[in-house]
């Protein structure tokens, strides 16, 4: 029995050294060496200023910007080094079948129609009125981006073709044409529109 106890304890210690310590440090070392950008959060940095991560969504509400998924913003969980509140977001976890949810979507539809008068009563792509799985979805579908092209062009005083060029530059297709869905990176489109990133 004493031997079994020693074996169990020793085995746990060895496993912690191998799978916890050595393995984690090895992957961190290799990752930081080979892929420093990805390993540190795929941050977009231009001329010494950061503009977010290309992987995490930000909320846009100005008419001149492309809008993303509905965000459930949280400013209470994170602070920066100076104790200032910092933005994060979570999913809604709401059932899409309740009457309350129906009322919520109706409000979102009304707000989007008011903000995009050029689109009249055209059906709104579903990703524009829903919260994402992470709460931080960086993307929107090409159809949802197209829905906003006229508004962005009008707000910026540029042509819809120029807006579409920015959208196209930030669009990725399915993997091998099959897996996942085509998508537009909202932050990238807005950085291109602002002239911060090249289109």
């Amino acid at each position, binding site marked *: 029995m004493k031997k079994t106890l020693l074996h169990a304890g020793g085995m746990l210690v060895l496993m912690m050294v191998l799978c916890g310590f050595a393995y984690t440090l090895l992957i961190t070392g290799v990752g930081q060496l080979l892929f420093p950008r990805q390993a540190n959060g795929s941050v977009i940095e231009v001329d010494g200023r950061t503009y977010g991560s290309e992987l995490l969504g930000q909320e846009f509400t100005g008419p001149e910007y492309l809008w993303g998924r509905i965000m459930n913003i949280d400013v209470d969980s994170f602070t920066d080094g100076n104790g200032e509140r910092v933005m994060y977001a979570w999913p809604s976890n*709401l059932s899409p079948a309740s009457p309350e949810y129906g009322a919520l979507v109706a409000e979102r539809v009304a707000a989007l129609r008011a903000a995009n008068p050029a689109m009249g009563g055209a059906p709104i792509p579903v990703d524009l009125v829903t919260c994402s799985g992470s709460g931080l979805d960086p993307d929107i579908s090409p159809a949802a981006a197209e829905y906003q092209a006229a508004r962005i062009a009008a707000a910026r005083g540029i042509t819809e073709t120029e807006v579409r060029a920015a959208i196209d530059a930030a669009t990725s297709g399915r993997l091998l044409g099959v897996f996942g869905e085509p998508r537009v990176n909202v932050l990238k489109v807005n950085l291109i529109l602002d002239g911060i990133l090249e289109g």
Partner: protein
Amino acid sequence: MNAYLQYGLYLVILVALAIPLGRYISRAMGGETVFLSPLLRPLERCFYRALHISPEEDMGWKKYAACALLFNLFGFVVLFLILMLQGVLPWNPQGFGGLSWHLAFNTAVSFVTNTNWQTYSGEVALSNLSQAMGLTVQNFVSAACGIAVLFAVIRGLMRVKSKGIGSFWTDLVRAVVYVMLPLCLVVSIALVGLGVPQSLGGSRTVDLLEPFAVDAGGSRIVGAEIDLEHNTVTLDGAVVADAQIITKQALPLYPQASQVAPKQAGTNGGGILGTNSAHPFENPSPLTNLIEMILLLLIPVALCFSFGFSIKDKRQGIAVFLAMFILLVGFLGVAASQEHAATPQLAQNGAVDVIAGDGMPGGNMEGKETRFGIATSSTWAAFTTAASNGSVNSMHDSYTPLGGMVPMLLMMLGEVVFGGVGCGLYGMIGFILLTVFIAGLMVGRTPEYLGKKIEPREMRMAVLLCLATPIAILVGSGAAALLPSTADALNNAGAHGLSEILYNYASAGGNNGSAFAGMGCDTPFLNTSLGLAMLFVRFVPMVAALVIGGSMAAKKRVAAGAGTLSTCNAMFVFLLILIVLIVGALSFFPALSLGPIAEFTQMAGLG
């Protein structure tokens, strides 16, 4: 059309990779030479030498079970202490304090039992030390433990008039060194390259392109004018006194890729971050998703084939595989069709476009990521609850009523549709014995499996294997539903609220770990009761399976005769599926009809 192609290819890729891996695992666990042996055998021997273990030891089922339980007990205690004390331990750049006793209990149990239920959200609760030395280690060893016990049971089925079923230590070391470690090394480095962070520096902040204003309570002030220079916020011309301007976003950075790999490979499922593989940092693209999603079911599927190779009768393994696969495809079909169809509340009489089209995923996108859409999200939901993985790439709480019932049911069936690594298959062996027994009663013959007579002792254990999950789920969710305070924890009202309770106990009772995550489970009662359910469902079946292994090993083999029930033909596969479904349906139909089915009828009535 594309959706069908995605469903089909995901399944084909999975099976195509699982067959060779199944052969590899069978050989590696049997101590035979595999192509990685020159590299890995020295590492394996290090363990035996350091601990003075004889790799050839042949343990009886009692000693095997004692070793497994002791190892898990130590694992639990160490993890519990790490979580409680992380505030004063090193490797804590996030500066988090220790967890409460009940959250630490729940989390430690959850990872030791291969459930990986997350009451916590990692990015706001856990240090690098807790993640890497605590959770990642259990991601490896809890999976290896399942594989070890499965191979002990297989030896029991194969051996004749023998006392031993192998050595737990040898099985554990081989499962880690030959199966989990190589797979995770390759996958985690690939994931870093594809965008998953791997950093020890702790979280950082980046600037927002469009800053926004919040009031003192943290709610966004809609329509506010922001003057960054003077740090003032005006609304309709008036300055808002207590407003704050938010200019930065948090980036939760961890040694992340190195935990995502074993999380997926070992049917663990506990993410570094709260939203798991829906979070763009854990799963940034369709390619990382393909890797993670295949990995999720790869070892459980491969083990069906390993089973066939190890008992030297491939047809037996294929029969088990087919029964599981047919169940998986059926359930996936139901979930997918429901999610593609969305709900009347989303469609708004046509004001919202929920029909898939060019550049448009359509369907129920609440809780789903744009890059994954409906097909990839539904496939993951079915995979992760078929396997007792529990990682998610979309929020199951926001599935349609029947779409969300599918993952719930897959867990309620006892996690035997592939299930957890190792434990899914030994759970299924329980159902196989039950099927053989019932079929034997119908034709009036002594039931036997693989040439071994099934007697009362094995049947008692098989029933324990089959009923542990229903007991844990129904007792747990029943008790929770009776407690008035549980209602405060819910995120949705009415029938969907009951679904949240049911789902979360099904997750604990199936050692799955996915959640209807709107329910806040960080209360002493919920943390403790969910933890107890996980413990019961992990270790009662584990010991029952070892008892079966031990008593089968001691039996002699009887020659197959003309009246022997074949356990590898279509009829048997059909019977097995039927028994699994009947036990599940009889146990859960009343509860389901008050939860998801009631919500569905309400929804349809509104439509």
